[in-house]
């Protein structure tokens, strides 16, 4: 993913990918244990700061990324706000039943989804897949067999996108798209993946043979072109979270914005 978006390199890009992956996974789990709305909001702000300041993306692109995030926030939050359970009714219209409890819970869930999305994207934008797999092989002892299969697969994605476009053109020429009706739409949506997959399967097979022809052997110890190691940047990464989560916790409990401590119902 990172290859598609050229950006400035920051310290965040230099953090060891495996370490980053583990930290982000632990943070994902940690978010699930947050039930205090104030803390949740503060935590999301901490992640958002990391995303905005250190992914090395231009402001324009960051604003662009925020658009779908708003959608994620609204869609998850609204369904809980409108239809969630609660006792103190604020508003009622047909099926929609907004209560104080569901309102807070909805906002809480919205922020939770938002922080997931922010963490995932921050990781994706600052990690080159190739380096991630090199690091997984070196630090976490992932068998090279899997690592190289994934890397080869990632290489196929842009080729497939190009192919998808060509197939769509080719279908248009046959007059597929000019006909209407449910039946044809169904036909069309089935007919594109078939040539795409048949090409990809063949290509994947050929790549596998080519890899063996280049003496790839997963049972033999190998050297690595990229040496991945733990560096001071990893400690910066760790300290960033300790510091900001600490700060978020402090603010949330000493200067709460909203007088709710637990959104669970």
């Amino acid at each position: 993913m990172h290859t598609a978006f050229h950006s400035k390199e920051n310290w965040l890009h230099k953090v060891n990918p495996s370490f980053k992956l583990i930290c982000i996974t632990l943070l994902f789990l940690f978010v699930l244990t947050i039930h205090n709305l104030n803390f949740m909001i503060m935590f999301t702000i901490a992640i958002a700061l990391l995303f905005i300041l250190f992914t090395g993306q231009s402001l324009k692109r960051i604003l662009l990324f925020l658009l779908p995030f708003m959608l994620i926030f609204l869609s998850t939050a609204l369904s809980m706000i409108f239809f969630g359970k609660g006792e103190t009714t604020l508003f009622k219209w047909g099926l929609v039943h907004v209560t104080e409890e569901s309102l807070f819970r909805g906002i809480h869930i919205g922020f939770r989804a938002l922080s997931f999305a922010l963490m995932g994207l921050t990781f994706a934008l600052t990690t080159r897949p190739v380096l991630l797999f090199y690091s997984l092989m070196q630090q976490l002892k992932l068998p090279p067999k899997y690592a190289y299969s994934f890397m080869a697969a990632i290489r196929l994605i842009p080729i497939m996108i190009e192919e998808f476009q060509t197939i769509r053109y080719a279908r248009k020429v046959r007059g597929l798209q000019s006909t209407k009706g449910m039946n044809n739409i169904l036909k069309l949506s089935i007919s594109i993946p078939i040539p795409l997959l048949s090409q990809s399967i063949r290509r994947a097979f050929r790549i596998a043979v080519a890899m063996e022809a280049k003496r790839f052997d997963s049972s033999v110890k190998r050297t690595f072109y990229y040496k991945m190691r733990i560096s001071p940047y990893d400690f910066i990464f760790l300290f960033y979270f300790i510091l900001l989560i600490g700060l978020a916790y402090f603010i949330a409990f000493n200067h709460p914005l909203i007088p709710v401590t637990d959104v669970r119902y």
Partner: protein
Amino acid sequence: MDNVSFVDHLRLKFPHEKSLLFKDLSLSFHKGEKVLLLGPSGCGKSTLLQVLSGLIPKAIEVPIKHEKIQIPEAWGFVFQDPDSQFCMPYVDEEIAFVLENLQVQRDEMIEKIQELLNTVGLQIDNIHTPIQSLSGGMKQRLAIASVLALNPEVLFLDEPTALLDEQGTAQIWDTIKNISEHKTVIIVEHKVDQILDFIDRVIVFTPDGKILADGDVSYVFSNYQEELDHYGIWYPGVWDSYLMRNKLNKHYKKDGNKHSLRLKNFKGFRNKEVMIAVEDAEIYPGEWISVIGKNGSGKSTLLLSLMQLLRTTGTYTIHNQCIHKIEDLQDKAYFVFQNPEYQFITNTVYDEITYAHQIKKADQQAIRNNADEILSIFGLKDKIKHHPYQLSHGQKRRLSVATAFVQSPKLLLLDEPTFGQDSKNTFKLLEMLENQRKTGTIIIMVTHDQQVIKHFGTRVWEVQGGKVIKDWKNNQRSKEDKNAYSFSQ
């Protein structure tokens, strides 16, 4: 002399085939020999390379049996498709992948990568360049570089230039000639013109995997011409022999001077950027225009624009009718893509042929008659019930052109239709196009094949930097531009 590679009494059968591909085949290769394997498609040349290198049965599981086999200690294999032999996204990473396999130390790698790239003449400013940004010829040279990292004594080349244009092909063979001193080279290739001076020995296979001829170049090409013709092999004199047998009549009786296709100030766009421009062109019925130009100059974009698959501006009329969108072109124009599979949308050859009529709900009996006629012209009559994907490469190509003919379009656009086809299929296809042209259809075809341009085209467009910069009748070119191609008419 020492044999570097041999196989004795080889028997091989693909699981879903009825008969053996090889029955007691024995072959041996000397050290330093440059051998060319020829044969009709499907005779097992590529399979043999995979056996000799040990890829079968190690990487590709096919049951084989042999009395004795010697697989060279160090060998390299270059495949046909430039896009499916790399597993890493960048040039340096791809070569490093091989070096890692050989357990080369990390601090020696960069130097080694530079050295290998220099050996194959791949000059790039930064070794950390995306492979995707290289041309086909460059990709194949990268493939050779990564194979050279293995320090092979035997090189197996499986049609390394089949998917390259003329320039790329020349680059690859130059590279191989440079690097292969003292190495044994075993080549499977259809286009043999450029390597004859390099080859010591030619082996010709029959369709059932037996050795028909085995000898030096002049012996094989002078004694087995008939068989080579019959198998569809591109040997040096194949066009001469074809032209002797067939008289080509290039002229179409124009009815008056009425042009049927007109372009003025025509531009094709991709993401708001002008990708191709034609200032002014009139095309008459029965013209066959060959579009030439370098990779990436805009040839395919021109065809896509003419088919209205890209956004276009300017005047574009066919029979005085303005064309603005693809729907305006229905029944008028048809585009045949490079990969025939992309265009198949049904499950049998018959449905494929009748598809256009079925959606118009035409008379069933008429549909059937029309389909029968076309299928017999294209030699696909006994394949009516087959799934299009089950056809051979040549048959798929013919089917995809046949679907075009069903609608007898006024304008036929083709993107390298003869690419990677054997000579038999190529001639068959060209003849069908020629017959269609004689009825007044305009053919606009992207091609690299000089012989096709010379013997079948009536007009040539040269595309450069997104513009049609030259436009001439086929027999005028040699006068205008002596140092480019020579069209001896």
